[in-house]
Protein backbone atom coordinates (compact mmCIF):
# COMPACT_ATOMS: atom_id res chain seq x y z
CA UNK A 1 0.00 0.00 0.00
CA UNK A 2 2.82 2.36 0.95
CA UNK A 3 4.55 1.65 -2.37
CA UNK A 4 1.33 2.45 -4.27
CA UNK A 5 1.06 5.82 -2.47
CA UNK A 6 4.76 6.55 -3.12
CA UNK A 7 4.41 5.67 -6.81
CA UNK A 8 1.23 7.76 -7.12
CA UNK A 9 3.03 10.78 -5.65
CA UNK A 10 5.95 10.29 -8.08
CA UNK A 11 3.52 9.78 -10.98
CA UNK A 12 1.60 12.95 -10.05
CA UNK A 13 4.78 15.04 -10.19
CA UNK A 14 5.95 13.30 -13.37
CA UNK A 15 2.64 14.06 -15.13
CA UNK A 16 2.61 17.61 -13.71
CA UNK A 17 5.98 18.29 -15.36
CA UNK A 18 4.90 16.60 -18.61
CA UNK A 19 1.76 18.77 -18.65
CA UNK A 20 4.00 21.65 -19.79
CA UNK A 21 4.04 20.00 -23.22
CA UNK A 22 0.42 21.11 -23.55
CA UNK A 23 0.97 24.61 -22.14
CA UNK A 24 2.09 26.40 -19.00
CA UNK A 25 -0.46 25.51 -16.31
CA UNK A 26 -0.91 25.56 -12.51
CA UNK A 27 0.13 21.90 -12.12
CA UNK A 28 3.44 22.56 -13.86
CA UNK A 29 3.99 25.78 -11.91
CA UNK A 30 3.30 23.97 -8.65
CA UNK A 31 5.71 21.13 -9.51
CA UNK A 32 8.37 23.55 -10.71
CA UNK A 33 8.16 25.68 -7.55
CA UNK A 34 8.28 22.58 -5.36
CA UNK A 35 11.23 21.20 -7.34
CA UNK A 36 13.30 24.33 -6.64
CA UNK A 37 12.45 24.25 -2.93
CA UNK A 38 12.95 20.52 -2.48
CA UNK A 39 16.28 20.56 -4.38
CA UNK A 40 17.63 23.35 -2.18
CA UNK A 41 16.18 21.73 0.94
CA UNK A 42 17.81 18.45 -0.06
CA UNK A 43 21.23 20.10 -0.33
CA UNK A 44 21.17 21.72 3.14
CA UNK A 45 21.43 18.56 5.33
CA UNK A 46 23.98 17.11 2.89
CA UNK A 47 26.23 20.16 3.17
CA UNK A 48 25.75 20.13 6.94
CA UNK A 49 26.74 16.46 7.22
CA UNK A 50 29.45 16.33 4.55
CA UNK A 51 31.05 19.77 4.86
CA UNK A 52 30.09 21.58 8.07
CA UNK A 53 30.49 18.65 10.50
CA UNK A 54 33.78 17.21 9.13
CA UNK A 55 35.52 20.49 8.22
CA UNK A 56 34.20 22.96 10.82
CA UNK A 57 32.52 21.34 13.84
CA UNK A 58 34.72 18.25 14.33
CA UNK A 59 38.13 19.95 13.91
CA UNK A 60 37.21 22.91 16.14
CA UNK A 61 35.15 21.30 18.91
CA UNK A 62 36.57 17.77 18.96
CA UNK A 63 40.02 18.27 17.40
CA UNK A 64 40.60 21.60 19.21
CA UNK A 65 42.02 23.23 16.05
CA UNK A 66 40.87 26.66 17.16
CA UNK A 67 42.64 28.39 14.26
CA UNK A 68 39.74 27.19 12.08
CA UNK A 69 37.45 29.63 13.90
CA UNK A 70 38.99 32.35 11.68
CA UNK A 71 37.89 30.83 8.31
CA UNK A 72 34.51 30.02 9.88
CA UNK A 73 34.08 33.68 10.75
CA UNK A 74 35.28 34.56 7.25
CA UNK A 75 32.62 32.22 5.86
CA UNK A 76 29.97 34.00 7.93
CA UNK A 77 30.97 37.23 6.17
CA UNK A 78 29.16 35.86 3.08
CA UNK A 79 25.91 36.82 4.78
CA UNK A 80 26.79 40.52 4.54
CA UNK A 81 26.32 40.31 0.77
CA UNK A 82 22.80 41.71 1.11
CA UNK A 83 23.76 44.54 3.47
CA UNK A 84 23.91 47.97 1.86
CA UNK A 85 26.73 49.32 4.03
CA UNK A 86 28.66 46.16 4.86
CA UNK A 87 28.48 44.19 1.58
CA UNK A 88 32.24 44.81 1.08
CA UNK A 89 32.90 42.37 3.93
CA UNK A 90 31.54 39.51 1.78
CA UNK A 91 34.51 39.99 -0.58
CA UNK A 92 36.89 38.35 1.91
CA UNK A 93 35.56 34.76 1.71
CA UNK A 94 35.29 35.18 -2.09
CA UNK A 95 38.89 36.36 -2.55
CA UNK A 96 40.22 33.44 -0.51
CA UNK A 97 38.57 31.16 -3.06
CA UNK A 98 39.85 33.22 -5.97
CA UNK A 99 43.46 32.90 -4.80
CA UNK A 100 43.52 29.33 -6.05
CA UNK A 101 43.41 30.58 -9.68
CA UNK A 102 47.19 30.87 -9.31
CA UNK A 103 47.36 27.11 -9.53
CA UNK A 104 44.94 27.22 -12.46
CA UNK A 105 47.46 28.91 -14.77
CA UNK A 106 50.04 26.10 -14.96
CA UNK A 107 47.38 23.41 -14.55
CA UNK A 108 45.19 24.61 -17.44
CA UNK A 109 48.23 25.12 -19.68
CA UNK A 110 49.39 21.60 -18.88
CA UNK A 111 46.14 19.61 -19.01
CA UNK A 112 44.14 21.52 -21.62
CA UNK A 113 46.88 22.77 -23.93
CA UNK A 114 50.16 20.86 -23.68
CA UNK A 115 48.71 17.37 -23.14
CA UNK A 116 46.18 17.89 -25.94
CA UNK A 117 48.88 19.19 -28.31
CA UNK A 118 51.14 16.26 -27.49
CA UNK A 119 48.29 13.80 -28.14
CA UNK A 120 47.54 15.50 -31.46
CA UNK A 121 51.20 15.21 -32.52
CA UNK A 122 51.51 11.47 -32.00
CA UNK A 123 53.22 9.71 -34.94
CA UNK A 124 50.86 10.22 -37.88
CA UNK A 125 51.10 6.60 -38.97
CA UNK A 126 47.47 5.95 -39.87
CA UNK A 127 44.81 7.81 -41.87
CA UNK A 128 42.80 8.38 -38.69
CA UNK A 129 45.66 9.99 -36.73
CA UNK A 130 46.41 12.20 -39.74
CA UNK A 131 42.73 13.21 -39.93
CA UNK A 132 42.67 14.03 -36.21
CA UNK A 133 45.79 16.19 -36.66
CA UNK A 134 44.33 17.99 -39.70
CA UNK A 135 41.01 18.51 -37.91
CA UNK A 136 42.63 19.94 -34.78
CA UNK A 137 44.89 22.31 -36.71
CA UNK A 138 42.19 23.55 -39.11
CA UNK A 139 39.72 24.19 -36.26
CA UNK A 140 42.37 26.17 -34.37
CA UNK A 141 43.03 28.14 -37.57
CA UNK A 142 39.29 28.87 -37.82
CA UNK A 143 39.42 30.54 -34.39
CA UNK A 144 42.38 32.71 -35.38
CA UNK A 145 40.58 35.93 -36.28
CA UNK A 146 43.59 38.15 -36.90
CA UNK A 147 43.67 37.04 -40.55
CA UNK A 148 40.81 37.18 -43.04
CA UNK A 149 39.33 33.78 -43.83
CA UNK A 150 39.91 34.17 -47.57
CA UNK A 151 41.84 32.33 -50.30
CA UNK A 152 43.88 29.24 -49.38
CA UNK A 153 43.65 30.14 -45.67
CA UNK A 154 39.85 30.32 -46.01
CA UNK A 155 39.82 26.85 -47.58
CA UNK A 156 41.76 25.47 -44.58
CA UNK A 157 39.40 27.12 -42.07
CA UNK A 158 36.43 25.74 -44.02
CA UNK A 159 37.78 22.22 -43.46
CA UNK A 160 37.85 23.10 -39.76
CA UNK A 161 34.18 24.12 -39.93
CA UNK A 162 33.29 20.71 -41.41
CA UNK A 163 35.16 18.92 -38.63
CA UNK A 164 33.37 21.05 -36.05
CA UNK A 165 29.98 20.34 -37.62
CA UNK A 166 30.62 16.60 -37.39
CA UNK A 167 31.71 17.06 -33.77
CA UNK A 168 28.60 19.11 -32.94
CA UNK A 169 26.41 16.55 -34.70
CA UNK A 170 27.95 13.76 -32.63
CA UNK A 171 27.46 15.75 -29.39
CA UNK A 172 23.88 16.52 -30.40
CA UNK A 173 23.18 12.86 -31.18
CA UNK A 174 24.55 11.81 -27.81
CA UNK A 175 22.51 14.47 -25.97
CA UNK A 176 19.30 13.44 -27.75
CA UNK A 177 19.90 9.78 -26.92
CA UNK A 178 20.51 10.64 -23.24
CA UNK A 179 17.26 12.62 -23.10
CA UNK A 180 15.33 9.89 -24.93
CA UNK A 181 16.74 7.36 -22.48
CA UNK A 182 15.40 9.46 -19.57
CA UNK A 183 12.04 9.77 -21.34
CA UNK A 184 11.84 5.99 -21.78
CA UNK A 185 12.68 5.62 -18.08
CA UNK A 186 9.82 7.92 -17.06
CA UNK A 187 7.35 6.20 -19.39
CA UNK A 188 8.44 2.80 -18.07
CA UNK A 189 7.81 4.09 -14.55
CA UNK A 190 4.34 5.38 -15.42
CA UNK A 191 3.22 2.36 -17.42
CA UNK A 192 5.08 -0.30 -15.44
CA UNK A 193 5.71 0.69 -11.80
CA UNK A 194 2.64 2.88 -11.41
CA UNK A 195 -0.08 1.41 -13.64
CA UNK A 196 1.35 -2.11 -13.66
CA UNK A 197 0.82 -2.70 -17.38
CA UNK A 198 4.42 -3.92 -17.83
CA UNK A 199 5.32 -6.92 -15.70
Amino acid sequence: MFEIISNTVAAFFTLSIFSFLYKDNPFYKFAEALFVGVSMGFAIPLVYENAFIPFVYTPIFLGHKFSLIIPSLLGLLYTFRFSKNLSWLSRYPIVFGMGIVGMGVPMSIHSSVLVQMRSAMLPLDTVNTALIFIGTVTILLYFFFSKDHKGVYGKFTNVGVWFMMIGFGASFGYTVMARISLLIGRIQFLVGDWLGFIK
Partner: protein
Amino acid sequence: MKRQIPLIIVITLGFMFVAHSFIPHTISQDFLTWFQDWMKAISPFAVVLGIMSLFMVHGKKISYKAPNWQYSIVTLAGLIFTALTGFIWGTQAGTPYMWIFKNIQMPMSSTMFALLAFYIASAAYKAFRARSPEATVLLVAAIIVMLGQVPLGTMISKWIPISSKWILNVPNLASKRAIMIGVGLGMTATSLKILLGIERTYLGGGD
Protein backbone atom coordinates in the same frame (compact mmCIF):
# COMPACT_ATOMS: atom_id res chain seq x y z
CA MET B 1 40.75 50.16 0.80
CA LYS B 2 37.54 48.13 0.71
CA ARG B 3 38.50 46.93 -2.80
CA GLN B 4 42.28 47.19 -2.63
CA ILE B 5 42.87 44.82 0.32
CA PRO B 6 40.83 41.93 -1.22
CA LEU B 7 42.66 42.55 -4.51
CA ILE B 8 46.06 42.38 -2.77
CA ILE B 9 45.01 39.10 -1.09
CA VAL B 10 44.06 37.54 -4.46
CA ILE B 11 47.25 38.70 -6.20
CA THR B 12 49.50 37.57 -3.31
CA LEU B 13 47.82 34.16 -2.93
CA GLY B 14 47.68 33.72 -6.69
CA PHE B 15 51.39 34.29 -7.25
CA MET B 16 52.22 32.10 -4.24
CA PHE B 17 50.27 29.25 -5.83
CA VAL B 18 51.89 29.83 -9.22
CA ALA B 19 55.27 29.56 -7.45
CA HIS B 20 54.09 26.42 -5.65
CA SER B 21 53.26 24.75 -8.98
CA PHE B 22 56.85 25.19 -10.15
CA ILE B 23 58.65 24.85 -6.77
CA PRO B 24 56.69 22.32 -4.67
CA HIS B 25 58.85 22.83 -1.55
CA THR B 26 57.73 21.35 1.79
CA ILE B 27 56.97 24.83 3.13
CA SER B 28 54.68 25.71 0.21
CA GLN B 29 53.10 22.22 0.38
CA ASP B 30 52.30 22.81 4.08
CA PHE B 31 50.91 26.22 3.19
CA LEU B 32 48.69 24.66 0.51
CA THR B 33 47.39 22.05 2.99
CA TRP B 34 46.66 24.80 5.52
CA PHE B 35 44.93 26.88 2.84
CA GLN B 36 42.80 23.93 1.73
CA ASP B 37 41.69 23.34 5.34
CA TRP B 38 40.68 26.99 5.55
CA MET B 39 38.79 26.80 2.25
CA LYS B 40 36.94 23.68 3.40
CA ALA B 41 35.89 25.55 6.55
CA ILE B 42 34.73 28.61 4.55
CA SER B 43 32.80 26.72 1.85
CA PRO B 44 29.78 25.39 3.87
CA PHE B 45 28.78 28.96 4.66
CA ALA B 46 28.19 29.69 0.96
CA VAL B 47 25.01 27.61 1.32
CA VAL B 48 23.77 30.10 3.92
CA LEU B 49 24.12 32.79 1.25
CA GLY B 50 22.09 30.67 -1.18
CA ILE B 51 19.33 30.09 1.38
CA MET B 52 19.23 33.80 2.27
CA SER B 53 19.01 34.71 -1.41
CA LEU B 54 16.13 32.28 -2.02
CA PHE B 55 14.24 33.52 1.05
CA MET B 56 14.76 37.17 0.08
CA VAL B 57 13.59 36.68 -3.52
CA HIS B 58 10.52 34.61 -2.63
CA GLY B 59 9.83 36.55 0.59
CA LYS B 60 9.60 39.76 -1.45
CA LYS B 61 7.26 38.09 -3.97
CA ILE B 62 4.99 36.94 -1.15
CA SER B 63 5.01 40.24 0.75
CA TYR B 64 4.31 42.32 -2.37
CA LYS B 65 1.78 39.76 -3.67
CA ALA B 66 3.62 39.70 -7.00
CA PRO B 67 2.10 37.62 -9.84
CA ASN B 68 2.14 33.88 -8.96
CA TRP B 69 3.25 34.67 -5.39
CA GLN B 70 1.44 31.54 -4.19
CA TYR B 71 4.08 29.35 -5.81
CA SER B 72 6.77 31.09 -3.77
CA ILE B 73 5.06 29.72 -0.66
CA VAL B 74 5.31 26.23 -2.20
CA THR B 75 9.05 26.75 -2.86
CA LEU B 76 9.82 27.94 0.66
CA ALA B 77 7.60 25.28 2.26
CA GLY B 78 9.33 22.59 0.17
CA LEU B 79 12.74 23.88 1.22
CA ILE B 80 11.93 24.05 4.93
CA PHE B 81 10.10 20.72 5.02
CA THR B 82 12.82 18.80 3.11
CA ALA B 83 15.64 20.31 5.17
CA LEU B 84 13.81 19.55 8.43
CA THR B 85 13.21 15.91 7.47
CA GLY B 86 16.97 15.59 6.84
CA PHE B 87 17.87 17.14 10.20
CA ILE B 88 15.23 15.31 12.25
CA TRP B 89 15.32 11.78 10.76
CA GLY B 90 18.75 11.78 9.15
CA THR B 91 19.77 11.22 5.53
CA GLN B 92 20.13 7.44 5.45
CA ALA B 93 18.12 5.13 3.19
CA GLY B 94 14.58 4.51 4.43
CA THR B 95 14.15 7.91 6.07
CA PRO B 96 11.46 10.48 5.05
CA TYR B 97 14.30 12.57 3.61
CA MET B 98 15.22 9.80 1.15
CA TRP B 99 11.53 9.16 0.45
CA ILE B 100 11.24 12.79 -0.69
CA PHE B 101 14.31 12.33 -2.86
CA LYS B 102 13.05 9.09 -4.43
CA ASN B 103 9.43 10.09 -4.97
CA ILE B 104 9.50 13.87 -5.45
CA GLN B 105 12.94 15.25 -6.29
CA MET B 106 14.26 12.48 -8.53
CA PRO B 107 11.08 11.96 -10.64
CA MET B 108 10.77 15.70 -11.24
CA SER B 109 14.47 16.06 -12.05
CA SER B 110 14.49 13.24 -14.61
CA THR B 111 11.14 14.36 -16.10
CA MET B 112 12.52 17.90 -16.53
CA PHE B 113 15.42 16.48 -18.54
CA ALA B 114 13.15 14.06 -20.40
CA LEU B 115 10.97 17.04 -21.35
CA LEU B 116 13.96 18.43 -23.22
CA ALA B 117 13.78 15.44 -25.60
CA PHE B 118 10.66 17.03 -27.14
CA TYR B 119 12.09 20.53 -27.32
CA ILE B 120 15.45 19.34 -28.63
CA ALA B 121 13.60 17.51 -31.42
CA SER B 122 11.58 20.58 -32.46
CA ALA B 123 14.65 22.84 -32.16
CA ALA B 124 16.61 20.37 -34.28
CA TYR B 125 13.92 20.42 -36.95
CA LYS B 126 14.13 24.21 -37.16
CA ALA B 127 17.93 24.38 -37.00
CA PHE B 128 18.97 21.40 -39.05
CA ARG B 129 16.83 21.71 -42.16
CA ALA B 130 19.61 20.91 -44.59
CA ARG B 131 19.90 24.43 -45.97
CA SER B 132 23.69 24.40 -46.32
CA PRO B 133 26.36 21.71 -46.77
CA GLU B 134 27.59 22.33 -43.20
CA ALA B 135 24.08 21.87 -41.75
CA THR B 136 23.71 18.67 -43.79
CA VAL B 137 26.99 17.31 -42.40
CA LEU B 138 25.80 18.07 -38.86
CA LEU B 139 22.45 16.41 -39.51
CA VAL B 140 23.99 13.29 -41.06
CA ALA B 141 26.57 12.95 -38.24
CA ALA B 142 23.82 13.31 -35.61
CA ILE B 143 21.59 10.71 -37.31
CA ILE B 144 24.44 8.20 -37.67
CA VAL B 145 25.50 8.64 -34.03
CA MET B 146 21.88 8.28 -32.83
CA LEU B 147 21.26 5.18 -34.93
CA GLY B 148 24.61 3.74 -33.86
CA GLN B 149 23.41 3.73 -30.22
CA VAL B 150 20.29 1.61 -30.81
CA PRO B 151 19.64 -1.90 -32.21
CA LEU B 152 17.68 -0.34 -35.09
CA GLY B 153 20.95 1.02 -36.50
CA THR B 154 22.50 -2.45 -36.67
CA MET B 155 19.28 -3.81 -38.22
CA ILE B 156 19.46 -1.20 -41.03
CA SER B 157 23.15 -1.77 -41.79
CA LYS B 158 26.16 -3.20 -39.99
CA TRP B 159 28.08 -0.12 -41.16
CA ILE B 160 26.03 2.29 -39.04
CA PRO B 161 27.55 1.33 -35.64
CA ILE B 162 31.01 1.21 -37.26
CA SER B 163 30.51 4.68 -38.81
CA SER B 164 29.12 5.99 -35.51
CA LYS B 165 32.22 4.74 -33.69
CA TRP B 166 34.48 6.29 -36.34
CA ILE B 167 32.71 9.66 -36.13
CA LEU B 168 33.10 9.67 -32.35
CA ASN B 169 36.75 8.56 -32.39
CA VAL B 170 38.11 10.62 -35.28
CA PRO B 171 36.40 13.87 -36.40
CA ASN B 172 34.63 14.31 -33.06
CA LEU B 173 37.93 13.81 -31.21
CA ALA B 174 39.66 16.38 -33.44
CA SER B 175 36.83 18.85 -32.80
CA LYS B 176 36.82 18.29 -29.02
CA ARG B 177 40.62 18.49 -28.87
CA ALA B 178 40.76 21.82 -30.69
CA ILE B 179 37.97 23.21 -28.51
CA MET B 180 39.76 21.92 -25.40
CA ILE B 181 42.95 23.74 -26.45
CA GLY B 182 40.90 26.92 -26.96
CA VAL B 183 39.25 26.50 -23.56
CA GLY B 184 42.65 25.92 -21.95
CA LEU B 185 44.06 29.09 -23.49
CA GLY B 186 40.93 31.01 -22.41
CA MET B 187 41.21 29.71 -18.85
CA THR B 188 44.87 30.66 -18.71
CA ALA B 189 44.17 34.15 -20.05
CA THR B 190 41.30 34.69 -17.57
CA SER B 191 43.38 33.37 -14.66
CA LEU B 192 46.23 35.73 -15.62
CA LYS B 193 43.78 38.66 -15.82
CA ILE B 194 42.59 37.85 -12.29
CA LEU B 195 46.16 37.45 -11.02
CA LEU B 196 47.25 40.76 -12.50
CA GLY B 197 44.19 42.57 -11.14
CA ILE B 198 42.73 43.34 -14.59
CA GLU B 199 39.63 41.19 -14.07
CA ARG B 200 37.85 42.43 -10.92
CA THR B 201 34.18 41.61 -11.47
CA TYR B 202 34.27 38.96 -8.73
CA LEU B 203 34.63 41.82 -6.23
CA GLY B 204 31.09 42.94 -7.05
CA GLY B 205 29.79 46.47 -7.21
CA GLY B 206 29.90 49.25 -4.63
CA ASP B 207 32.89 50.84 -2.91
